């Protein structure tokens, strides 16, 4: 079943409902039921887990065990009034990068329930958003009219450009294996169990996964590869925001990271495939299968994100030039090795 058929069935709509209206409903549902709750959950888990790693208690005041901390944070940020107006240029670039980023929700591969766009170029579309995100961040930093903003913007651009190359090449490896760049191609080629994931199909795919993961951290400036937000520039671009804008900015960054994690899961870690017993448990009902797929892909993505955060908590951060050296001199060549190796492997042993 396509997403359109599933949603028509869920709400009992007639075909008179235009597709664009239903697509809007799907996007709103994705944000309200997946992205926002996931961002709240991951913010809490990351802080609790980080505190546990660091022999601290972590947030424990808002609600039982601090479970309401994300809501307390949101309320606090919403109540803060700006003390000085931001320039229209900053507003403009914040809007540009936000629109570019959230537009990727249409290609967010969360399973058959929400897969609005499934073209031959689906897997490449988020990269376009990441590039706009980098461009927007660069101009945003430049227009903050401060030295930290300038440096932060330039470092974001340098990191994103250097990280995009190995990430793209790593993704090409998966394309060779699955024979296409539709999200459904990646998913169809893998299974629910870990041994049927693309990641473990051959050594070069594992290498490609490692390269893709680290490159994603570079593109999205996740600690320890976050020189654009380092202490010397007192937090960089993010330090120029407060209150509601900061909340908005942070949510955007969370979404970008979530998107990257979903991509990694769909391309390398079994996609949204669910075990056969689960399918039989819901008696092949397309609606429930769609929901289960959504749960599976979201859970795996969140686990990947939390693992990355935990790693970032213990490793010292690198300098901007060291990050770009890592991507150009290490990840780039490794991704090419993975690509050639994967092509030979598939040619020799088959996919």
């Amino acid at each position, binding site marked *: 079943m396509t997403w359109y058929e599933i949603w028509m069935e869920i709400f009992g709509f007639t075909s008179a409902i235009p597709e664009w209206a239903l697509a809007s409903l799907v996007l709103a549902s994705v944000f309200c039921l997946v992205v926002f709750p996931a961002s709240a959950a991951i913010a809490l888990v990351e802080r609790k887990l*980080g505190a546990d*790693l*660091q*022999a*601290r208690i972590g947030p424990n005041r808002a609600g039982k065990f601090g479970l309401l901390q994300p809501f307390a944070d949101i309320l606090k940020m919403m109540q803060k009034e700006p003390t000085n107006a931001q320039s229209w240029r900053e507003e403009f670039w914040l809007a540009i990068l936000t629109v570019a980023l959230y537009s990727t929700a249409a290609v967010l591969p969360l399973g058959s329930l929400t897969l609005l766009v499934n073209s031959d170029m689906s897997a490449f579309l988020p990269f376009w958003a990441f590039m706009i995100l980098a461009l927007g961040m660069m101009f945003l930093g430049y227009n903050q009219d401060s*030295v930290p903003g*300038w*440096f932060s913007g330039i470092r974001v651009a340098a990191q994103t450009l250097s990280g995009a190359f190995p990430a793209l090449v790593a993704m090409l490896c998966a394309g060779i294996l699955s024979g296409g760049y539709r999200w459904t191609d990646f998913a169809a080629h893998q299974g629910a169990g870990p041994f049927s994931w693309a990641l473990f199909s051959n050594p070069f795919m594992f290498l490609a996964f490692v390269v893709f993961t680290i490159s994603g951290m570079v593109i999205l400036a996740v*600690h*320890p590869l*976050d*020189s654009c937000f*380092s*202490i*010397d*520039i*007192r*937090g960089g671009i993010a330090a120029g925001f407060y209150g509601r804008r900061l909340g908005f900015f942070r949510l955007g960054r969370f979404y970008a990271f979530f998107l990257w994690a979903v991509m990694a899961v769909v391309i390398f870690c079994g996609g949204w495939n669910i075990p056969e017993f689960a399918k039989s448990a819901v008696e092949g009902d397309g609606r429930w299968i769609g929901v289960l797929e959504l749960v599976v892909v979201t859970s795996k993505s969140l686990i990947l994100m939390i693992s990355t955060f935990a790693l970032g*908590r*213990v*490793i*010292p*951060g*690198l*300098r*901007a*030039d*060291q990050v770009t050296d890592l991507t150009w001199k290490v990840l780039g060549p490794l991704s090419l090795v993975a690509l050639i190796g994967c092509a030979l492997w598939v040619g020799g042993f088959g996919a």
Partner: protein
Amino acid sequence: MNTLGSNTEGRLEHLHTDFTHWEIGPYHPGLPGPLRLRVTLDGEIIVRLEAETGYVHRGLEKNFESRNWIQGLPYADRVDPEAAVFGEIAYCSAVEEICGIEIPGRAAYVRMILSELTRISSHFRSFVALADAVGADTFKHYVLRDREKILDLFELITGGRFALNFMRFGGVAEDVTEGFLERVFDACELVKMRIKEYNDLFSFNHALLARTAGTGVVPAERAVAQGLTGPSVRASGRAFDVRKVHPYLGYSDIDFEVPVGKGEFGRTGDAHDRYLVRLREVSQSIRIIKQVSESIPDGPYCSMKRDLRFKVPAGEHYFRVEGPRGLLGCHVVSDGGDHPLRVSFRTPSHAALGILPEVAVGARLEDLPVILASLDISVSEVDR
């Protein structure tokens, strides 16, 4: 242009951009305190740096002159609030030298225990600054957790955690409380165990080495010329330690080593050497504390009664101690009255800040917090 500490090798000279001027501070998370750094940057490379101080000037030395002798003690505490006890010991010892007061052996040993505990606490604080500079969050929290154990010991014996105000002319304010020495022993064992944990997690981490090895190199001759002392000069290869060169209290009876930098991972005198020297000094401090705790003599803890109208004979004396940041000297002048004529301090951070413009030139902007943290500058010491 001075290229001390430069890492500009391989830079394309024809790619010139306009210089960027940036005034960092006085309040900035990468700075050790209120301080303004005027930085000129070529791209991200620092080509010029000027430090402006005076943001926390308290007229501390002048304050001594309007207080009687014993009232000066809390001011001596605040020369470097992170290592308060050294200011007190330097001031008290200088006064005791002028008066010819002998301090009891027990008091000298208590002073040594407090000195070494403070050294550990202060070095831990410098590790926190370095961890902040490189973004090593977990290591930072581990160190802060362990530092609390040391501060608990201060609280147990003095009632204070930072400004102890525990020294008195002729000894210390109180005898050690019951069970204090055992708890000191336990804390030492804990810290010893933690050092291994720090090494596993942080000291030899590749990312840390990438950030600190070869960064902010201070050659030994420049360190000496600028008057750098303490772990910073020892990291440059000079084993200068006041406890060995001019022993005071009971340090001449104690067996300990002076760690020096060897450039194990980068170049001698780099930021990583400074970190390693401090870490090894923590081990040596534990060694000293254990020896002192085991051989602390019985007897009085102070050789004279407290007297607010206490007068110091006319004369002057300069006393130096080995603080956690280096040589801390106190020059006391008396005209025979009940308050000092002049008290001045020679602080190690002043020299460390003096060498900063040399060390920073050629480094990348991102290295600046690392260099500052590795030099372990106390702005409070600089401004006074």
